[in-house]
Every structure is written in structure tokens, then in C-alpha cells.
């Protein structure tokens, strides 16, 4: 039920977006991420037709880097 799927934004029109999930195109509302600065090419998490978060790639890199350091500590 709380499943949210990462999808790529391929087109934006107002607060609607065309998104692509594994080659399948769907429509989603951007109303809940209006303040996140979503652009074409970004990934968003989509839940029941609404994007709920923009996925921030830089944060993903950052957290992995931090953990790699922890793991390297021995």
C-alpha cells in the first residue's frame, strides 16, 4: 500500500507530469512536490498517482561515501 515507485519525469505541464517507469509511461501529479524544483530528467517517488518526493542523487552519493568511510575504519 505504501509502495512508492521511482519514476523518471519526461514531460511537465503545470502541476502534471508524464513519468516513465521501466519503459511504461503514466501521468502523475506534482502538486505535493511543488516546492522541490522538479525538472524533466529528475527522478521522483510516485505513490497512487502523486509524486511524493524528488530523489536527490547527490544525497545518495553522499550517504554512500559516508558509509564507505565508516566501513574502512576497520
Amino acid at each position: 500500500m505504501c509502495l512508492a515507485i521511482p519514476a523518471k519525469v519526461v514531460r511537465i505541464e503545470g502541476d502534471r507530469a508524464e513519468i516513465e517507469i521501466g519503459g511504461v509511461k503514466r501521468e502523475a501529479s506534482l502538486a505535493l512536490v511543488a516546492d522541490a524544483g522538479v525538472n524533466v530528467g529528475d527522478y521522483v517517488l510516485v505513490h497512487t498517482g502523486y509524486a511524493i518526493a524528488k530523489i536527490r542523487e547527490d544525497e545518495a552519493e553522499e550517504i554512500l561515501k559516508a558509509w564507505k568511510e565508516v566501513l574502512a575504519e576497520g
Partner: protein
Amino acid sequence: MFSKFRDRKLVEKVTQKIEEESKGITVRIMHVCGTHEWTITHFGIRDLLPSNVEVVAGPGCPVCVTPGSEIDMIAELSTKDGVAVTTFGDVIRVPGTRTSLSEAKARGGDVRLVYGIEEAVRIARQERKKEVVHFSIGFETTAPMAAVEILKGPPENFSIFSTHKLIPPAMEFLLKSGLSLDGFICPGHVSTIIGVKPYRGLAERYRKPMVVAGFEPLDVLLGILSIVRQVKEGGWGVENEYTRAVREEGNVIALKAIGDVFEVADSWWRGIGRIEASGLKLRGHFEEFDASKKFGLEAPPADYMPEGCGCGEVLKGVIKPEDCPLFGKECTPNHPIGPCMVSLEGTCSIIYKYRSLRW
């Protein structure tokens, strides 16, 4: 980006570190999300852990914790003339105390599966002579969509039957109950909405470490490692491993919409009982869209479980699905008896489907 969170070498390293750090201690971790259970079971994560580190599933499936009496009411409503009930696919086969939505549909009830509440509103606009009632079920992840649609002003033949539930009060209920737990993996998608803040008070009050984690194997393993390290050091901090999607403050637009439309109320969790301030009901000035008022859907909650069914104990993390006498015998995904076997996110259903990875 996602493949990095499945990096085999890193997974091996994290697993090794979990083993090292947990030497001499036992750690029992609970997660409260069906999708986390899917990741854990599907990728065989429990097999990677040493025997002194255990991960159990809590009440992470909203369909499973919806009281049978509410399912009865909405199923019976669907058989009334001029009414159509819309809902998500997961809910339709869940048994109530007397009936289910699929049974009602077979008896001629108008039950329609929708992908989201937006589609339900569209049906109401297209079929103005029908009373369209959306069975609005789900945790904090699903409530914002209902709130936004109500704020947009749906047609007057549209209403929702809200059984939305909140996760942190359920976590607190379990902590209070004295269940043996050393930490929580907090639900990733719920947390995109509520943020990290609500867990801070909980961690402090009950002195348990908590980690918000994503849904790739490495996300979950890093969450486990973080909790193990904290238990070893006697800490109870809250960490956010899922920073790529979860902000400290959550999704403020979604939280505002929820607050504008809903008020917090006590709620009944199937198999668990009444939990204070753990549900969402429509505020008084949205009464016209409240199906419970429109159709008088107010019944005392009945905590019915099919005979012999262990879902109640599974939902509280007291027993594993395999410990239920019905599991894999009378109760399978094709012939489910309890709610945890019906829902795709139910712990029993997930364990049953992927158990070959464990045994």
C-alpha cells in the same frame, strides 16, 4: 543510482561489519513497512545476518490492520442501489467479520478498483447519479492524496470512508507494551511525508535507536548496522539513511494538506486493539465528503480474526508467520485466511512467496 545500493562487495562488507559489531550482544530490530519486509525476504537479508541479530516485521500493512467491522460496512454499502465503492486492489479480498468486498461484488455490489483517489473522483464526475464512496485506507503516505482531492473540491456525489492510520503512535504502543525490541527501522515512504522529527521524541522517551531506511538491500543492511552499532554503544539516536528521499521536516505541502483536511482521532488496529491518536478523520467542515456521516457508517469496532489465525501476533512481531498453525497449510496466498496472507504487503504473504530463499 539504484544499482549502487545493490553493490555486492559493499553488501558483503556491511554484513561482515554487522557480525563484528554484534559480537557478544543480541539485537532485535522491528520494521513497520510491508515494502521493507519485501526487500528483506526477497533478497534473503535474514540469511546474511548472524543468529544474534533478528529483524521482525511489525504492523506495516494498512490493509492488514483495518478492522473487519469496517470492511463489512464498506462491503455492504457497495451492494446498496446507486452506490459505487472505489478502492485499491489489495483490499478487495480481505475478509471482514461477515463478508469481504470481493464477496459483495459477487453478490452484485458495485466495487471498482482504482489506481489512486484521483481516479475515484473522476468516476464521480462522470457518473453523477452514482454516490461514489472511496475506501480511503493507508498510512501517512496515502493520506495526502485524499487531502489534496478534498481540498480541490470534488463533486457532491463523492465521499471518502477514511480509515487512515498513523505509524508513530503504533510504534509507541508497541514500545509501551514492553515488547522485546532494541530498535526500529522506520518506514521509508511514510517518512518522505512525516520526516525524521516524529521519531526523535520516541527514541528519546524509550531509549531505542531508530533509522529511516530506503528499500534497496544496502539501505536495509546499513539501517541494521547503524542500530547494531548504537545498541553496542548504548546509544538511542535517530539516523536518516534514506536522505535521497526523506528530509528532516518531511513533505511540508503534504503535511499541511493532511492537517487542513483531517483531525487526529483514536483508531482501532485489527489484531492489536485501540491506539490513542493513531487515526485520521475528516474535519467537521468537510462533513459533506465524509461517508461515515453520509451513510451512517459508525459501528463499534469488532476485533475479529478467523479461527486459529495468528495475524494478531504476527502484526505485533510476537510470532513469525511460520509459527502460525495455519501458515502454508490451510492459509496460502491462493486461499488466504488471515489479512496478512491476503495483502501483497502482508508479512505472511511475502514470507510464503519467497520462503524458498530462507529454507
